[in-house]
């Protein structure tokens, strides 16, 4: 009843009244939130590097290229969506374990190494993608006894996850 006086209570309809022109093809949007994106970032980078580079070079060549590079942008989005759907298909539980840890720990990658290890292993087994930080020989995510580990309970949760996975098999 009060809704009609309270603008903030207005229920907005999520309808695009001004869609893109019909001659520009539709593309499925990524639609993932920040934690899953961060968790999958290195695998998106590993698979989509050519498309990403192509898109950014196009933008560079066209002075921003917002309208000119829509085609390359669609390729980038399609590639990222393919990675995310593959992750969901083959490594759904591991992916969820890792991004929920990130979500709970302020997106601190160092606090989620145990779940990340499980996740990376699954991704390598199924998608043949590896996490590789460019420019350095020593990969921080493979470090044995890191100093900064955060205060997460990731170790415990990962152990429980592995145990429940074993008992299922």
């Amino acid at each position, binding site marked *: 009843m009060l809704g009609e006086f309270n603008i903030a209570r207005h229920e907005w309809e999520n309808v695009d009244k001004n869609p*893109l022109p019909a001659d520009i093809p539709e593309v499925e949007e*990524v639609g993932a939130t920040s934690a899953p994106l961060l968790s999958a970032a290195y695998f*998106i980078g590993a698979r989509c590097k050519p498309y990403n580079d192509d898109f950014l070079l196009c933008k560079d060549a066209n002075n921003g290229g*917002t309208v000119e590079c829509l085609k390359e942008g669609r390729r980038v989005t399609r590639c990222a969506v393919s990675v995310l759907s593959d992750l969901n298909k083959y490594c759904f539980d591991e992916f969820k374990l890792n991004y929920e840890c990130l979500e709970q720990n302020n997106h601190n990658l160092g606090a989620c190494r145990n779940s990340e290890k499980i996740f990376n292993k699954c991704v390598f087994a199924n998608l043949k993608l590896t996490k590789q930080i460019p420019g350095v020989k*020593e990969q*921080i995510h493979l470090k044995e006894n890191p*100093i900064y580990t955060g205060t997460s309970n990731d170790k415990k949760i990962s152990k429980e996850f592995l145990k429940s996975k074993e008992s299922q098999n």
Partner: protein
Amino acid sequence: MQDLPPIGGYEPVQWKRNLPSRGFRPVIYFWLFTGIMGFGFYRYYKGVDEQRELARERQWARFYLQPLLLAEDDRNIARRYFSELKRQELVKETMSEEAKAKFEKELYNDKSKLRFPRYTAGANPSEH
């Protein structure tokens, strides 16, 4: 007449003070604390290295995501750009000839790049 010592002799004289023990030799303390400090510095700079690598990891994660975020944003900006062009066409239909000429006048002389219509030159709404 002379005093003689008491029978059984005098008690022994305490010639040394009762000072508490001063601990180890100074050189041992020097190396002990140097060692502790050295370990602390070693650990600290290891931590600095690790923080730098963690930052690098975060940055590269962002670099890999940036194109897809930009692509998504570009589509939204392009959508708004084209719909703005369409809106301007609609507005032009209702204008008089003079107002339309004014409205169609280019705002910028520099044609080297695409400019998004943030500020639309046009007639005062009351003149439409």
